[in-house]
């Protein structure tokens, strides 16, 4: 199962190395990992998407992360009401005839064109990973020259529903 885990960490040198090393040593598959500063100085937030096959294993990931001295808090937010986004930059083969057609495809995804050249078009899209994936699939037939994704970053919504449920209250295009 795919789980989204966030960890707030002391922003010391070596902390990212410690965390990725530990995930690798304990044989957890990292799908994506993103890091950045937070509102608190000296504190960073890491969002890790891992693929684990058993809940016992998931418990181990969080416990092992928590155990690190520089890790302040670890949460598995997969089943919480969350906002989760990633950004992708997609460079595709294109020419002046195709531009309008592509524009039509990306518009419902609220993606934008950020660079144009004689034979290519660069597109920026943000959203849930599924949405990003869907757009990539639609653009693939044109020929993807280059693709870069940030990986997911996420946090919990301001308000959590009382009864926890799978959060599917917003659409793919949200």
């Amino acid at each position, binding site marked *: 199962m795919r789980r989204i885990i966030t960890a707030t*960490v*002391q922003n010391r*040198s*070596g902390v990212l*190395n*410690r965390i990725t*090393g*530990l995930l690798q*040593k304990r044989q957890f598959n990292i799908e994506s990992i993103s890091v950045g500063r937070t509102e608190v100085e000296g504190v960073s937030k890491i969002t890790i998407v891992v693929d684990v096959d058993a809940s*016992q294993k998931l*418990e*181990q990931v969080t*416990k*092992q992360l*928590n*155990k*690190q*001295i*520089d*890790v*302040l808090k670890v949460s598995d937010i997969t089943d919480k009401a969350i906002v989760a986004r990633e950004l992708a930059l997609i460079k595709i083969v294109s020419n002046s005839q195709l531009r309008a057609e592509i524009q039509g495809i990306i518009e419902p995804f609220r993606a934008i064109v950020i660079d144009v050249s004689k034979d290519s078009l660069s597109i920026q899209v943000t959203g849930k990973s599924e949405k990003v994936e869907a757009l990539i699939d639609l653009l693939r037939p044109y020929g993807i020259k280059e693709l870069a994704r940030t990986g997911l970053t996420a946090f919990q919504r301001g308000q959590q529903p009382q009864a926890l449920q799978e959060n599917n209250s917003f659409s793919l295009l949200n």
Partner: protein
Amino acid sequence: MVKTKIKYEDQEQVVKKTPKTGADLLIESLIDAEVDTLFGYPGGAVLPIFDALYKVKESFNQVLARHEQGSIHAAEGYARVSGKPGVVIATSGPGATNLVTGIADAMMDSLPLVVFTGQVAQGVIGTDAFQEADVMGITTPITKQNYQVRSIKDLPRVVKEAFHIASTGRPGPVVVDIPKDLAANPCEDHYDTDFNLPGYQPTIKPNPIQIKKIGEVLATAKKPVILTGAGIVISKASEEIKAFVEEHQIPVASTLLGLGAFPGEHPLFLGMAGMHGTYAANKAIYECDVLINIGARFDDRLTGNLDHFAPSAIVAHIDIDPAEIGKNVTTHIPVVADAKLALNKMLKQIKATGDYGEWVEHVERNKQNFPLWYNNPETDMIAQWVIDQVYKTTKGDAIVTTDVGQHQMWSAQYYKFNKPNRWVTSGGLGTMGFGFPAAIGAQLAAPDDTVVAIVGDGGFQMTLQELSILQERGLPVKIIIVNNAALGMVRQWQEKFYEKRYSESVFSIQPDFVKLAEAYNIKGAKIDNQADLAKKLPELIAYDGPVLIDCRVLQQENVYPMIAPGKGIHEMIGVKP
């Protein structure tokens, strides 16, 4: 042994002439941390530190091993026996990489170490400078925490933090990497040492609800067992465990590292469990309906095949490290706590209501009927008998260190420890070369005790250069080489599982160990028969100085009982017929 401590201020006259440097600051921090013994080895990047040490020579008992691996294993032995952090200083590059085995060993066995490594000057870090190694990168996976100090103002705080982290919670090694320029350059007199570790707040107090649950399952249990681990030794809870066991009359099995936590000669003690554990201990774990693990981590050498480990038991696990609970064995009652605080709570909160009389009778019958055993030959010696003799001669009161292999398992089986902190062995990492240097550290921590290093002829040859220290310091360590002219444990596995293809496990030549001892000015003795050993051992052990005894034992002996790899804890082979 430990020299009287002279306060840093007393050295002022000497220091005053030159401005205070980062190295001086480090030394001051070590004095503040109440370090009395230093295991160091000099080199380019730590020259400023050793120079600063020279100026305060009297403040520390400085021990120069002959290899950094020797330094760090000695520091481990010191830590295990004294309960205080072992402190190591080594130079950059090869000095630091020579420490890696010891750091990993300490990590596995939860030993508090603070390791200082020199680093090349900050200006050239990352340029593959002479003797540069990425110490942070190398040691991250094998340390509880590691630091590279990049600003002198951080140094005193980092040192304080390092000692705190190494010795609290679940102890472990902490590495502090110090660039040469930081140590060499002048610095101010004082820096702030307050630290704040919001991500490190070990839970030490047990949750009373969980303790209550243990009480409830004990009230209805018919066949409970307590498993004692090194956590009890570390938290100094031997009194408490004994009181609890005696009040409730619950049989006890131990892990390898837990030996000594509970008295080895106690009627309720079933012995070590696991791969080479006793029949009674393993069988009790297999049959029990409640298993209370206190301070052990359910290592695979203990559990064997997990499907057969305590298959019908309700498992309670008390551990200060939450990540150990549920890692290997499904746990019904998790208790995150310091073992001593948990046991105190249990003593207060849990009244003896269960009646386990029948069960105790049953496990004690197993203990009587299927004890550890060996067939003693007429005159030749076998290792088991030798260790039994060491046990009897020292009246079970020595500090015993071992190396790794057959002799280690036999020591665990035949030397019965009634007190904690007297058993020093490499468990988790199984590090050959550990035993002899660890004995040096143990003797430094306990100068008045008899320290016996029981080592294999193989492993001893990995770190024997430390014989120099015995001579230099007059440390009266007694080295017993259990000489089977083989890498015995490897030979045993090849005999059992590789159809006797003894690939590289039998020595065709060996050094003359007695001559070797003499080369270091140490009394040596070679003994190859029972009569000789029985006659000479008492005086050799009592000898006022270091002794090396080369005990020639028969090669073909195997360690039994044994749980073969992949088998369950109930499938022992080699149980007394």
